[in-house]
């Protein structure tokens, strides 16, 4: 990673002069291409996203402002016309609201769904995902727990054994390390060790990932620790559309599902459909079809990848970007089809290099699609260090768009 490290420093220095003062990360300017349209198999809409994940503007409202960061995070339908926002179907909301909507709809639909976590009730949730739910559904369905992750996760699992469908929130996914025994041994394994007698339809969710200088203990990426647990499913949401869809699918699933959210993505805005929909838990999302290279990513790194994609497009590359979404199990069908098309793979992830999702994905692709690869799989992950507090150091811990660009260039030589 030494070469790219220098690259990052250089890029950061170059960009710092053009960054907007409010952004400690160093804004990355993007060029939007509203005329570009792609055919996708799923319903999609415009999303406008800053790379640092702060509040956004809809592409169609009042046009672009100067210095604005715009990226098409979700590819648009070929036939959708860029009409004004008021006549578009669906409704606009932020990602945390989408999560809440999904949760609320499922709680209305099924009286067995309940939520438990710290400060999710009266306080409304530290990220407002459960705001208003306690007033609507009462204290027995929206439960404020004491700070006792090990036991309330265990209680959620026990309740799930009887047929209730609890949604357990970890205020920060890192705190759920205290409940690792319950998640691993009870949640994951009880269906198997009881010979199929019990199902555990629990959803364990919460924000994780590297945030804004939150410090090492609050910047945990649990997906690498949890991925080995047999019996659980793991998904990572990245847009309001898939956040709501995955939340609903997770609640409806008979299996224990861990829904990984990201601290910096809660304020993403998107227009989502009014009608009831779910996102398949095991499916990956085609973000941008392409020909030259398959870039596999998830959660926040999707936006770094899309930002890098703009630069790559300008340089003449045609990357195919897939948000893998399902971290366990991998959607090897979508991924495989992409590998067969492009023959080059770059994985961009936020968890640490050692034992991360990228490591497992590399192994899975190599095992299954080795014959289709023209080059070794490249994997960009966060450094194997505790996340430092200082802004610049934190920036260098995670993968930045410039590194992604360099990596694709290397891969496509």
């Amino acid at each position, binding site marked *: 990673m030494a070469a790219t490290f220098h690259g990052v420093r250089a890029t950061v220095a170059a960009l710092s002069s053009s960054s907007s003062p409010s952004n400690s990360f160093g804004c990355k300017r993007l060029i939007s291409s509203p005329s570009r349209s792609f055919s996708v198999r799923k319903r999609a809409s415009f999303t406008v996203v800053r790379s640092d994940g702060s509040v956004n503007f809809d592409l169609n409202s009042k046009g672009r402002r100067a210095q604005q960061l715009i990226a098409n995070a979700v590819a648009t339908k070929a036939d959708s016309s860029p009409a004004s926002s008021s006549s578009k179907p669906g409704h606009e909301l932020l990602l945390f609201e989408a999560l809440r909507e999904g949760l609320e709809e499922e709680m209305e639909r099924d009286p067995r769904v309940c939520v438990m976590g710290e400060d999710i009730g009266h306080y409304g949730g530290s990220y407002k995902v459960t705001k208003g739910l306690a007033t609507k559904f009462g204290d*027995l369905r929206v439960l404020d727990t004491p700070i006792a992750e090990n036991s309330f996760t*265990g*209680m959620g*699992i026990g309740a799930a054994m009887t047929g209730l469908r609890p949604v357990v929130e970890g205020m920060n996914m890192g705190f759920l390390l205290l409940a690792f025994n319950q998640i691993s041994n009870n949640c994951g394994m009880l269906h198997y060790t009881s010979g199929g007698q019990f199902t555990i339809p629990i959803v364990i969710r919460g924000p994780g990932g590297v945030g804004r200088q939150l410090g090492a203990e609050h910047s945990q990426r649990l997906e690498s620790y949890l991925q080995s647990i047999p019996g659980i499913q793991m998904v990572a949401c990245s847009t309001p559309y898939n956040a709501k869809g995955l939340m609903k699918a997770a609640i409806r699933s008979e299996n224990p599902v861990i829904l990984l959210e990201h601290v910096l993505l809660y304020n993403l805005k998107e227009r989502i459909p009014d009608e009831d929909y779910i996102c398949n838990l095991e499916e990956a999302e085609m973000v941008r079809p392409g020909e030259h290279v398959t870039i596999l990513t998830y959660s926040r790194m999707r936006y770094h990848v899309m930002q890098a994609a703009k630069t790559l497009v300008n340089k003449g590359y045609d990357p195919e970007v897939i948000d893998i979404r399902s971290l366990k199990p991998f959607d090897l069908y979508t991924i495989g089809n992409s590998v067969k098309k492009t023959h080059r793979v770059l994985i961009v992830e936020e968890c640490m290099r050692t034992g991360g999702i990228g490591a497992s994905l590399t192994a899975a692709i190599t095992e299954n699609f080795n014959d289709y690869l023209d080059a070794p799989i490249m994997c960009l992950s966060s450094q194997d260090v505790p996340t430092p507090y200082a802004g610049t150091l934190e920036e260098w811990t995670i993968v930045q768009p410039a590194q992604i660009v360099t990596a694709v260039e290397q891969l496509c030589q």
Partner: protein
Amino acid sequence: MALSRLASSSSSSSSRSADLLKPLCSAISLRRPISTDTTPITVETSVPFTSHQCDTPSRSVQTNAKELLTFFRDMALMRRMEIAADSLYKAKLIRGFCHLYDGQEAVAVGMEAAITKKDCIITAYRDHCTFVARGGTLLEVFAELMGRQAGCSRGKGGSMHFYKKDSNFYGGHGIVGAQVPLGCGLAFAQKYSKDEAVTFALYGDGAANQGQLFEALNISALWDLPAILVCENNHYGMGTAEWRASKSPAYYKRGDYAPGLKVDGMDALAVKQACTFAKEHALKNGPIILEMDTYRYHGHSMSDPGSTYRTRDEITGVRQERDPVERIRKLILSHDLATEKELKDIEKEIRKEVDDAIAQAKENPLPESSELFTNVYAKGLGVEMSFH
């Protein structure tokens, strides 16, 4: 078990005075009427209850001949089953960990007598007898212990993972203390669904020092859950005596704000009384702790001789003074509910039952290789994994 009362000759005539109270038909029937007799008998528990932050239940326990004979039969069955498991383990038919419950039978049997199948029980790894008390069959036990298809968990759980969903027996857990939060979750579900039932979450004196217990108790007390935490105190956490592991070995008091009751766990009637009391309490007032003062004859598991940290005199002493099966036998004989020969016949019958179950289990096939991948996920929105 068709025995003519007139034909038996083991008792002296003085104890036959009870005959006069028996219905006339007994004189001519071949079936002994005693085994279904439900005339109440009052028995005093061996020791009074001690309580913490609550009243004690009465020392006088209502029982009847039928119940006492059921106690005897069930406990003798459990005893025989565990001893048979010991032999099977030494014959290497049972592998891995095997934690035997002999000595502690009264807790399982007494608890079952106080509750219904709507109430939930969850325990740790010493679960064979609790499983049987909840209605599990001997075949399911031995087949599971030997890893066969007919096992209660299809051979995939093993000794520490017995479950019986239809009688609300939630296992069967290997990690010390982890079952207590699960148990409080069961109690939460019961409250949520307005079941009017309670959950008994069992743990040992070793697990009593787990933080998650206190966390779960706190939440249960805050939310008024019908959870009953039962500490089966057999005085040793594997090789560590309770006084070396717990600063305060008064486990019934450890709940602090939660009331507690100390019970002689070797007296099935005392256990029954305490559980009845606890159920009533938990439904009205939230969690309560029961400490069952009990003892295990075997070591912690089959790999532990059980004699390096306690003397053989102690073990034989408890067996002589406090054995739960003997206590019920004496009770039955002193109340003239059955003759010694009849009880011995019951035991012979049980022996045969156990041997038959073992033979049947030995015949039972091992799981198919495809079973490796079943039940990892539930079908539906999840996937069944295949080898890749």
